[in-house]
């Protein structure tokens, strides 16, 4: 199948790739660009393991075609830390033991970042609402919600 | 000499008979048996209740679905498990965890 040239901004870097029109953004990120931090859980947009931020909005990258990403700004879990310094969400996920197996963690981190970027001071309900598209089967969500609350507090300087 | 000594020091163990094997024991739900290992206990049960061995041993080992509890602990060593004096033995289903 003939490949198409696509240009995106990936974690702040200008990035080009060739992909088949049938390849999802998830497949492009993982198999073409080697960004395997974004995970595949269902390919039907139900689990959120493949969440990335596209132009400020959290999306399921399994439901977007690679060619649809042309000109977009994409942030994946690999783009959260600033060099050696973890993002406050990453730190708080570790401190609160908000992960067990860790397969859903990249999706939760990315979706949480998109939430805090637009709502720096969310209520517990707003956090749960924002994360309802991300499935975690290990934690029961308790420690994830607490980690997001704590990260929000820290980022607010409280 | 050594073997003789062993024989003399082995005392009786209480064996609880699984309900599906009580046809072999005439309905008895427990019995006493002699032996220093699970294998020896089963051999003694076979002497008392012919046919017993084939219901719990297959191809030289405990059948897949059965485990032996010696004094409340599932035997890690199967037929080789040592049976101390005055033990209690139960045959229970073998299970695994998740």
């Amino acid at each position, binding site marked *: 199948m003939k490949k198409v040239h696509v240009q995106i901004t990936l974690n702040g870097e200008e990035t080009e790739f060739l992909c088949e029109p049938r390849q999802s953004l998830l497949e492009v990120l993982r198999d073409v660009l080697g960004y395997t931090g974004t995970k595949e859980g269902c390919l039907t947009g139900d689990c959120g393991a493949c969440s990335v931020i596209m132009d400020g909005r959290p999306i399921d990258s399994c439901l977007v075609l690679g060619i649809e990403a042309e000109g977009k700004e994409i942030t994946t879990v690999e783009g959260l830390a600033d060099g050696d310094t973890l993002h406050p969400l990453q730190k708080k996920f570790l401190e609160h033991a908000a992960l067990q197996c860790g397969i859903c963690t990249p999706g939760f981190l990315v979706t949480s970042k998109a939430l805090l970027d637009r709502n720096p001071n969310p209520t517990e309900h707003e956090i749960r609402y924002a994360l309802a598209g991300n499935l975690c089967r290990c934690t029961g969500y308790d420690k994830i919600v607490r980690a997001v609350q704590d990260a929000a507090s820290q980022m607010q300087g409280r | 000499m050594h073997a003789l000594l062993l024989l003399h020091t082995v005392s009786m163990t209480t064996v609880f008979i699984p309900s599906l094997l009580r046809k072999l024991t005439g309905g008895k739900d427990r019995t006493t048996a002699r032996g220093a290992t699970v294998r020896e206990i089963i051999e003694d049960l076979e002497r008392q209740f012919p046919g017993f061995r084939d219901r719990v041993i297959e191809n030289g080992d405990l059948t897949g679905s059965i485990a032996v509890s010696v004094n409340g602990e599932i035997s890690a060593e199967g037929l080789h498990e040592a049976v101390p004096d005055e033990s209690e033995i139960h045959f229970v289903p073998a*299970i695994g*965890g998740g």
Partner: protein
Amino acid sequence: MAARQEHKFKVIGTRPIRHDGVDKVTGRAQYGADIDLAGLLHGKTLRSSHAHANIKSIDTSAAEALSGVKAVITAQDFPNIEPGMAQMGELPVNPQHMSLNCIARDKVLYDGHVVAAVVATSPHIAEEALKLIKVDYEVLPHVQNVMDAMNDDAPILLPGLGKGDDGEPKDTNVANHVQFERGDIAAGFAAAEVIVEREFDTSMVHQGYIEPHNSVAQYSSDGQSTIWVSTQGAFTARDQTAMVLDMPASKIKVVPAEIGGGFGGKIPIYFEPISLILSKKTGKPVKMVMSRAEVLKATGPTPGSHIRVKMGADKDGKITAAEVWMAYEAGGFPGSPVGAGCMTIITPYDIENLKIDGYDVLVNKPKTAAYRAPGSTNAAMGSETVIDELAEKLGIDPLEFRRINGAKEGTAQAAGPKFGRIGYLETVEAAKTSDHFKSELPQVEGRRVGRGVASGFWFNAGFQSSATVAINSDGTANVVTGSIDIGGTRASCAMIAAEVLGLTAEEVHPVVADTESIGHTDMTGGSRVTFATGTAVYDAAQDVLSQLKERAAKSWKVETDQVTFQDGVFTCTTNGNESMTLKELSGKLPRTGGPVMGRASVNPRGVGPAFATHVVDVAVDEETGKVDILRYTAVQDVGTAIHPSYVEGQMQGGVAQGIGWALNEEYVYGDDGRLQNAGFLDYRMPTCLDLPMIETVLVEVPNPGHPVGVRGVGEVPIIPPPAAIANAIYSATGVRMADLPMSPPRLCKAILEKNG
């Protein structure tokens, strides 16, 4: 009573950052599907959409001709495994059934059963090729309900498999019958003031791990093979694959990738042997990853069941007799956890007169696998709701009823063996005195609210583990085990070593090794890792310590027994003030005899059982049948908690799965025998928005059988939720639910029937 005991430990009981944490929050951690190798090919499987059919022929020629396709295989490419049993770890397995479950030979037994596999240069081409394979089936009548499958005229899945109770062969779908009987149940029921008898139907449910099964295999022309896979047991995967392919186990190296959840479902093999055969055929590495639909249709869920429970109690609330009958779905091959169901169902209680019958029944559904305390959750739905009803009829508080009957040290279990030191009554007491149980029930406008309680029991497990501990020249230590880390066991093992060696948790580096780098280690399951592998690590660290004492003695030219060790410092008891830190000594190892490494391999006794008691408040919308969880508290005897955050995490995760099982999750099959809801949209697991915070109370009754008191914590928390929620729904609505899930349509119907 103080729930937590004061520790004498420095590291155990603290909450360090897990060692694999940074890799997992930055996306660096490598899971099975992340593995890439030069020349990698991609494999896909063709699966039956018939629930029961004979395979007459398979034509793969058109698929083979498609450009990009490198090979197509069927069962004919696999060795024909003879019937028989083999031991794997502690557990018996049937290699023939294992083989036929990986790829069907003559007949398919469920929707999703693999019949062929394709390998191609891209996953898309492999998928296209699947459509070109022609399979000629002779469709057979199917049976999917245990009660139907036990009928004499039911279609037989595996002719010649069954045995009657007399041990003689018989054509039946009943693969096994378990029975416990003691005392005199007729006399027991005659002595009862009240008797409750109810029947329950529970649905098949899936573990629901977010990471689909995967396997990357590389066959080498020297006959050595490597498999990278997300599995609960590297050795378990290796040994099963070797059995299915009739190869010596040593010809296969399994490299365990990070694993995205398992809960029992990643103990069996699926793609490992298929990817290896495809690699052998092509000479290239082959990656296979399941779709979610494949995971739901054809990996091992946990059985649905039909359960009858009859129990009686006297006016003082003492249970006088219990009679239980249960049939569990095995799936297409034998091996449901009905034995565990029988052994756990009334085991939290001291009951003199009992009879329990359990049946393992073949049905045209996927071969079931373990799922967190396998067999116990559906069983407890039966017993714990009947107990609630007995307590209610006698006017006794349900926790008090459990206290009256609760098992303690010396109580005989249903299967006969007596308990050692257990902490069941402590969990009941802690539940009674919990903030939650003492609080007023919250009111919700337009909803009926209710509170329920339930308990659960799980054995926990020992099995085989190996560990090495090596001292680095800078005074830190490396801990190598063969235990796959699913939820924080690198941290718990490192903390145990740190405690022994007087190091911080951060000064110990835990590694999960492949099958050529450590001694045999059984799978991560049965809540065994921190207990059994923790014991191996403890012993290996002690081994290191005694070697270090020898080195210190050597450098001081004294006898070893004149050296003591405390708080990271070696002291010579005879020369008075001579002392040296572990760090200082570590730097001197090259000149006192060379490196120091400790090792231990164990198959430990002294397994400490786990008990849990849960309290839940629900709000029921009587119009729609929707149940909201308002508040949830899980109390558990966890033994010594090594890393309390991950102990709490196990409890909270188990509760969330139990809530899903209680309220929504179920396999829905059509009349055609096909799974109707093979996706996460329709197989509805709890989301963040469905749950409240989950409160935990850690009761620590140390296990006397473990060097630091570990019991194992992972499994028991899934057991009580469905029964506790059913009891809460009754308290809210007056409706006794007997079927799982208690989904909105079912509950709505029950409420309508009650209200006439």
